[in-house]
């Protein structure tokens, strides 16, 4: 009897609870529809409205200029991700594990560029490696030749690094802080050299952080525009191509198709990397 009574009393409460959950879903639905589904659908439709119709989507893979740009972009983003992860892991590990005077200042300085837009980053690369840049000056004085690479793919690469390293360092530092140093002590007690400890204990434990921060670095590099725009003289990356098609050639359907392509390819590569790293972690285990 007692149970029956209490469950009858409980029923209206349950209803209101369900209602509450639905209410909470509302913002999600609105945001998804307004900012994602509707514009994406429109973009996808526009992409197919060109003279070639649906085949417009294939242009990104078939048309030599587009394909070359796509390959450039992917290679650049991949290189950025790889080098960022290496630099940020070594730096983040050191910063998290050691206490030295000036450490706080150094961390603050490293994370200072977080707020910079791509344009500012591009500007800084020009100041560093442009025609009037520091490196050019220095090489001119030392070797009698101006060394200028700001406007090449190397300048862009450097800019992307500058852009992504601070972000990844912060993620890695947080992950290193959570590492159980007991695991490293245990591995050492079993005879593992410092290298073996890194290989067998530290890196596997950091793998999730690598996947997460690497994905962000890669996606950011794939879509970065400001830096490319500032530096752009002879580099073609996908976001620049989309911009040119859109504003200069007023080629709406091609730029829409390229945009969708950029999104899908980035997503696909990230999914591939994630499943690969997932199985790599499992295989190492």
């Amino acid at each position, binding site marked *: 009897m007692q149970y029956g009574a209490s469950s009858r009393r409980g029923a209206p409460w349950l209803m209101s609870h369900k209602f509450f959950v639905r209410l909470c879903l509302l913002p999600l639905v609105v945001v998804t529809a307004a900012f994602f589904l509707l514009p994406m659908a429109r973009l996808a439709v526009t992409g197919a409205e060109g003279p070639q119709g649906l085949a417009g989507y294939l242009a990104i893979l078939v048309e030599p200029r587009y394909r070359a740009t796509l390959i450039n972009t992917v290679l650049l983003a991949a290189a950025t991700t790889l080098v960022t992860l290496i630099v940020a892991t070594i730096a983040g590990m050191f910063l998290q594990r050691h206490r030295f005077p000036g450490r706080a200042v150094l961390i603050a300085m490293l994370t200072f560029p977080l707020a910079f837009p791509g344009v500012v980053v591009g500007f800084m690369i020009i100041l560093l490696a442009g025609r009037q840049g520091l490196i050019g000056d220095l090489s001119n004085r030392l070797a009698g030749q101006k060394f200028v690479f700001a406007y090449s793919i190397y300048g862009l690469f450097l800019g992307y690094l500058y852009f992504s390293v601070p972000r990844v360092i912060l993620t890695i530092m947080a992950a290193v802080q959570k590492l159980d140093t*007991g695991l490293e002590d*245990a*591995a050492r*007690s079993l005879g593992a050299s410092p290298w073996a400890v890194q290989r067998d204990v530290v890196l596997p*434990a950091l793998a999730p952080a690598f996947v997460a921060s690497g994905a962000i670095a890669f996606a950011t590099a794939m879509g970065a525009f400001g830096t490319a725009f500032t530096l752009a003289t002879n580099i073609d990356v996908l976001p620049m191509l989309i911009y040119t098609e859109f504003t200069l050639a007023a080629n709406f359907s091609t730029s829409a198709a390229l945009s969708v392509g950029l999104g899908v390819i980035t997503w696909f590569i990230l999914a591939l990397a994630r499943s690969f790293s997932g199985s790599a972690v499992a295989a190492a*285990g």
Partner: protein
Amino acid sequence: MSDVTAHGASVRIEHCGKTFSDGTRALEPATLDIARGETLVLLGPSGCGKTTMLRIIAGLELPDEGGKVLFDGKDVTSMPIERRNVGMVFQSYALFPNMSVAENIGYGLKIRGLPKNERIARVAELIRLTNITGLESRRIDQLSGGQRQRVALARAVAIRPGILLLDEPLTALDAALRDRLRGELNRLLRALGITAIYVTHDQSEAMELGDRIVVMGKGRIAQIGTPREIYFTPRNRFVAEFIGAANIIEACLENGQLVLPGGRQPITSRINLAAAVAMVRPESIRLVEAAGAALSGVVDSVTFNGEKQRVVVSGASDKLLAVDAPNQVQIKPGDRVGLSISPEAVRLLPPED
């Protein structure tokens, strides 16, 4: 008896102190000898420097200037842990989450480059020895606390270490499991004949496992001795109170008798002291008829705990006096009782401070 039988090394620490970089003095310079095959227990309250001492022996921490660690007479102070051939079991177990049970146990062997078939055989034997058959391919997060503890132990002894270091290996487990594993651990240590250094803050664990116990307090060694020595002849008040239950009596000593509020209690020595400190264990006190007893008081409380009852008596000593009475005795608060204590059971302690 088995393939994993290890040959223990002897250990000597000389003047090993530890001051951390932030100025914390975790360990006063201490000297300690541990015989080959001995199980030595480091016992003391939290923060007294047990783990620090263990980490110095392991090679995870460098002693302060002037400190030395010797294994089998050989100075290993500057040798890193990976070359000392010590097995370690951590309180948190520190099992590798990216490896299976068998891979964890075999890790040290793999690092040593042991051929695969030998490795598999040794791992299998350890799995049998530590009673975890069937768990070989489990991931660590699929194990219970007790199973993790066994894997950690198997992993540590797999490399046939000369010295096994255990830092509170049972503390994270519940009481019943702790008791069972304590017995298993004891048998395993004896069977392996390994030199073991065991850190704990649990005195009954220390008594059961240790050939000798080092009682530590505030970064210092308070006493070293067998469990019996530590229990029956504590060297000072700290040791007496830390090991087992102890009644501390502060009183004046006249002609070999403690002058107490509830009467007089003879002791074995004949000295006179204005302020003596003495210790009596609750189980050394017998309840007798109040009439005619040399020492008497009033029952304050009675706690029945099955095998015995703890009777707290007031008015006999300067403080409340704990007495262990047989579980059948009928007694209640307010009763007047006599106390009989043999003079040998009263241990004089050095007055401190």
